[in-house]
């Protein structure tokens, strides 16, 4: 249903090549560049010879083409059905999107067909107009690279004003929250959009742009005992991290997981959820965090 050559990187590369050839005189090097940026590492070994040799008869040896118009393709029914499904997602309210032209199209999926069952219940308020307005203002500011004056409530519920340059929006699927990643803000570069109470364009003197906060990575080594299907469960659970796994014997594995130091507490509880089937080997600091919690637990029960 999805796996079709009409969506292929080769077709896309050839479409771009044809557009270029139609538009202006083109060298083989130009074609090579298009292939490298559009298709895969080894694609030029196939695409260029196929075009030049007349295997694919859309370009001839002199790099001219009988094709008259820059290639385009209408949206497929599958693409339209997918787009139509987005209309039922509450997060679509964050975007100025029109579904004109999709009236006769069936949804590919609806909320009846698909459920996320373990998303946190305090996600962002997509039906709150002030929230949506703030989101759109930030997105425009990111695109136009314009600084913003933002008012948020801090942990003590006191209003704080920040002048900052937003650079992107980070979305967590588990938290169902958007965070603004920004520069120039002394309180750290990450702000939950739902905590913003007021936002306006910053018109003051130039703000000093601090660098985007660099992620400090650490590595934890876990020993995975493959009982109760733990190998598979843990490898999937930690799949979104950069990781490396070694097999020690038929039932024991070592997993090295690279994580953001700021997320250490979260990772500690994620390791705990595997119980005695996953053991922290190193570093000692991380292992001690687990030991600390276990000691407290033992004292309670």
């Amino acid at each position, binding site marked *: 249903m999805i796996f*079709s050559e009409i969506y292929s990187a080769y077709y896309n590369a050839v479409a771009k090549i044809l557009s270029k050839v139609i538009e202006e005189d083109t060298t083989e090097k130009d074609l090579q560049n298009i292939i490298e940026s559009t298709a895969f590492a080894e694609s030029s070994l196939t695409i260029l010879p196929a075009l030049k040799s007349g295997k694919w008869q859309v370009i001839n040896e002199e790099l001219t083409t009988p094709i008259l118009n820059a290639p385009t393709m209408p949206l497929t029914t599958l693409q339209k059905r997918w*787009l139509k499904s987005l209309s039922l997602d509450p997060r679509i309210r964050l975007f100025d999107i029109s579904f004109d032209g999709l009236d006769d199209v069936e949804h590919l999926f609806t909320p009846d067909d698909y459920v996320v069952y373990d998303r946190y219940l305090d996600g962002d308020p997509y039906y709150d107009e002030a929230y949506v307005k703030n989101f759109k203002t930030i997105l425009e500011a990111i695109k136009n690279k314009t600084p913003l004056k933002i008012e948020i409530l801090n942990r003590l519920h006191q209003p704080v004003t920040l002048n900052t340059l937003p650079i992107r929006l980070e979305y967590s699927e588990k938290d169902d929250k958007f965070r603004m990643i920004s520069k120039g803000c002394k309180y750290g570069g990450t702000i939950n959009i739902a905590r913003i109470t007021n936002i306006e364009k910053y018109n003051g003197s130039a703000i000093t742009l601090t660098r985007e906060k660099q992620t400090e990575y650490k590595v934890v080594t876990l020993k995975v005992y493959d009982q109760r299907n733990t190998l598979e469960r843990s490898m999937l659970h930690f799949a979104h991290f950069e990781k490396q796994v070694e097999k020690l014997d038929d039932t024991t594995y070592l997993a090295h997981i690279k994580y953001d130091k700021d997320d250490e507490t979260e990772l500690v509880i994620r390791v705990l959820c595997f*119980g005695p089937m996953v053991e922290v080997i190193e570093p000692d600091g991380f292992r001690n965090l687990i030991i600390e919690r*276990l000691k407290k637990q033992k004292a*309670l029960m």
Partner: protein
Amino acid sequence: MSSYNELIKNFERIRNYMREFYVYGFKSRNDYDKKSARSYDDERRRLESWLGDYMRFERTRDGKNMFISIDSRVTVHNPLYRAFKAKSFTDRDITLHFIIFDILYDSTVKMTLPELLDTIDNEYLCDFPEPMVFDESTVRKKLKEYVEEGIICTEKQGRTVLYYRALDKVKINVDAVQFFSEIAPCGVIGSFILDKLSESQENFSFKHHYINVALDSDVLATLFDAMSKKSYITVTNLGRKSGEPKSVKLVPLRVFCSVQTGRQHLLAYEPDFRMIKSYRVDYLSDVKIDEVCENFDKYRALMNETQIHMWGVNNRKDVERLDTVEFTIRFEKGEEYIMGRLMREKRGGKVEQIDENHCRFTVEAFNCNELVPWIRTFICRITDIHFSDPFVDKRFKKDLKKMYRMYGIEGGAEE
């Protein structure tokens, strides 16, 4: 012997390799089926070509281990989508594709099959030294494919069929497609849309982002299609314990996606057992849509009724015989956020504050074992706990002792 090709005809084999390389990544070449060593080399080479630097290797005593290593928080586009853009085709397929859409450049251009054939021969191929020759049936077949894809339309004038390009009135919002192509089901379809647009700024990144589910997009899309048709399916399910593929007939009812475990399950009515069961989507393949199921709405209503008692994906037991779980946790002054954690993670459970330092969580669910991993995340705060299933209760407490032993904590000695 066929030579290596960067493109592939069948997705299923590469789906398995990608899963192995991405999720596990500890197998060496020798661990794969000996008979398919050549296949392993070809698939590895393809993945290196598609994924570039995301493919890593490590030398071990058993040989060279290939694996895919991706921090999905840093990567703005799911790299695994690239596999869906590697479908093989023939020389004639690609030639016809670009010529047909050039002839039918505008929706107002309408042509019969013979007219199209004449134009292809006389205006497009005639200047090539050895022009391809397309017969009527080849072009008709290609047009039929495109009509099915919805990109070419037909119109009848008497007994004559006219072909023209589908009218495209949809205005794409790039921001929305960029965002949903990463987080919506079958997001790879959004990625196909973005591929046809000119490059644009990337404004989003993603945390807790399980990109592996992309590999199941084709299966998922077919399941959705079957649900919209209210149809039975026949599907190959890889037995988790047996490791053997088995064909099963099901009525697909709903896909349950986890954003905490990286797994997706299909909840489906299995007529042979007369019950709703869950199936891992990544273990399903070769989905065929069969006849309409007259009782689809009835089974879905049953699903809706029972869903409130599902903590995870287990829907097997009788609604009359639910498990109960109850536990109390302690928090200190200044740790009230723990209550907040319980409130946002409680799903169908109930949270009540007992005093200024304690709160209690209770839930009735089909299978209390499904709560165990979550409850363990409160280790260091649990003051008492009770599972109605004695086996789970005993095992939870035994596991705690095992953890004490594992970390050398006094009092964790074997009983």
